[in-house]
């Protein structure tokens, strides 16, 4: 938050984000298996999210507390989803 902190090149990040976005859209047109396509577009989405978080949200230059605040809820959501899979998805 100090005035003289070097910050990432916001425009370059934006270019990357747009490229990734187009990759994600074009991936749906690939003649691959459905699961592969879905894996691909979500990998792209995850990379985009990480780019935004690290650069625009300045997570790169934050301390461990902020990192924990960003990561723990995500892990919790993933864990909750996985735990609920047998119950909601594979109904017996």
């Amino acid at each position: 938050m100090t005035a003289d902190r070097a910050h990432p090149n916001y425009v370059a990040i934006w270019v990357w984000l747009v490229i990734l976005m187009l990759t994600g859209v074009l991936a749906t047109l690939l003649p691959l298996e459905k699961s592969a396509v879905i894996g691909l577009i979500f990998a792209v989405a995850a990379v985009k999210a990480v780019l935004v978080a690290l650069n625009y949200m300045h997570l790169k230059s934050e301390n461990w507390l902020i990192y924990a605040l960003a990561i723990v809820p995500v892990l919790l959501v993933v864990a909750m989803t996985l735990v609920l899979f047998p119950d909601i998805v594979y109904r017996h």
Partner: protein
Amino acid sequence: MGEGTVASPVKPPQGIRPTMSHRARVDPIRLPVARTAHEDRSFWRTYIFSTDHKTIAKQYLFLALFMALLGGYLVYVMRWQLAFPDTSIPGFGFVGPETYNALTTNHGTIMVFFVAMPILLGAFGNFLIPLMIGARDMAFPRLNMLSFWILFASSLVIMSSFFVPGGAAAAGWTGYAPLSARTEYTGVNWGINLWLLAHALEFASFLMGGVNFLTTAITMRAPGMTFFRLPLLVWQQMTASVIFLLSVGPLIAGAVMLLMDRLLGTSFFVPEQGGDPLLWQHLFWFFGHPEVYVLLMPGLGAVLEVLAVFSRKSIFGYRWIIYSTISVGFLSLIVWAHHMFISGMDPRLAMPFSITTILISVPIALIVFSMILTLWKGSIRFTPPMLWALGFIVMFILGGLTGIVLGSAPVNIQVHGTYFVVAHFHTVLLSVVIFGSFTGIYFWFPKMFGRMMNVPLSNLHFLLTLIFFNLTFFPMHAVGLAGMPRRITNPLQYEFLQPVQSLNVYITLSALGLTLAQFLFLINFVWSIVAGRKAEDNPWESATLEWTAPSPPPHGNWGDTIPTVYRGPYEYSPPGVREDFLPQDLAPSARSD
């Protein structure tokens, strides 16, 4: 160094600058001046729309006590109906089954969300966190004020739900879908919508409150107040806030979905159109179970503070308690499905959740052992707060142990949904809410209101509460073992419950006694605020920072300078020193040995 920094705020006063820069060296993450104090001290700004954390704490307390009267009235009607089914209840009249369901639902909602949380988090957290860490106010005083007023609005909404056509929500405090999702199943329409709206406001209020608590405790500690010099109550309030913030999200999403089901005719939880009722239960309990620990933590914190002060001894294993608290917080997020063993969820999930559930008893047990060992070789003073604290431990052990019964998946098959559950969670929650809250209220009353409470009346209140509490809830376990279902209106409709009806009558009479005993407190409370003996700054000879401020503390809490902290919070009876306690802000050089 300057004068009157507290009374003339708005612009940072000149005199405080040197102090500031000095402090900045001690601890870079310092918070400056009392920036919240306002010159405009009209009646409205001082007592109603105040941003002072202490006034807001009192507002929470008064709101909670009022709502407790309402919740108590509901339980009076319910218990009377159970003991003497289908008779006219004095002060109410006849209770139909629809009304009874509305009573149970709102009794649960009000007691958990409008009594327990406002007292334990709203009042204790607001009052004590800034005072204990040596801050002049919360990090965001206006947000703090907003939190309270949103809660106030929420309590108006829940009260108004009794007066809409169709009556108040009647789908249980858990609001299981599809019963809660479609009007035709309960006959209650606007009651449930308002009930959900009240929850939304309540969650928004405590979400903002939690953010405020955590930010305050992280960024506004006094110079020298490291994390391992924080009083345990602050640690536990922090843990409670973290658990709340992390667990309430899915339920907020779920509540929006349920409201959409009701208002827009969507089908998230209605199976006919492809919804899944179990999803609601998961979302509800993902929050609902951590909520128990959200309530428990502040109560536990208050008891620990009191134990140290009145046994004149350091808390046994301060650090171990902190580690346990954090592990309880973590574990509480992964035990929710033990409320759902027989709900129809995949039975293979039961054992993992049974194990985490029973594991959570391990850190809790450690805290209980530590509380008991704190008494070892102490010099115990049986003041009113100490009596409540000891009562808390006994009742909490009892409630915790019956939890093992419920946490074991196979035994849960038998006792789930019966009065055994009711007895268990009332023992736990009431030990936290009644004993924990009274521990805190009797202990910090002198600091809050600048006066002492009447001791004989306090002791009588404790004695009667302890007796009637056990007379009420201990037999309830037996009723539950006999198989009496929760939320039934009339036990006489069941042949197998005929033998326990006399117990039901007996429980009702004890519950009446328990309720009446609380009026002793109300009398004492009001009388002491008006005419109690004036309190000194530190009447209990406690070492933590809140007692270094005047009683009651002025706006801004301390005069010119914020205290600097030199040691941990529980330095009682240290060797080689004449005094039997060392306040946290006593400079080592000033020690008189």
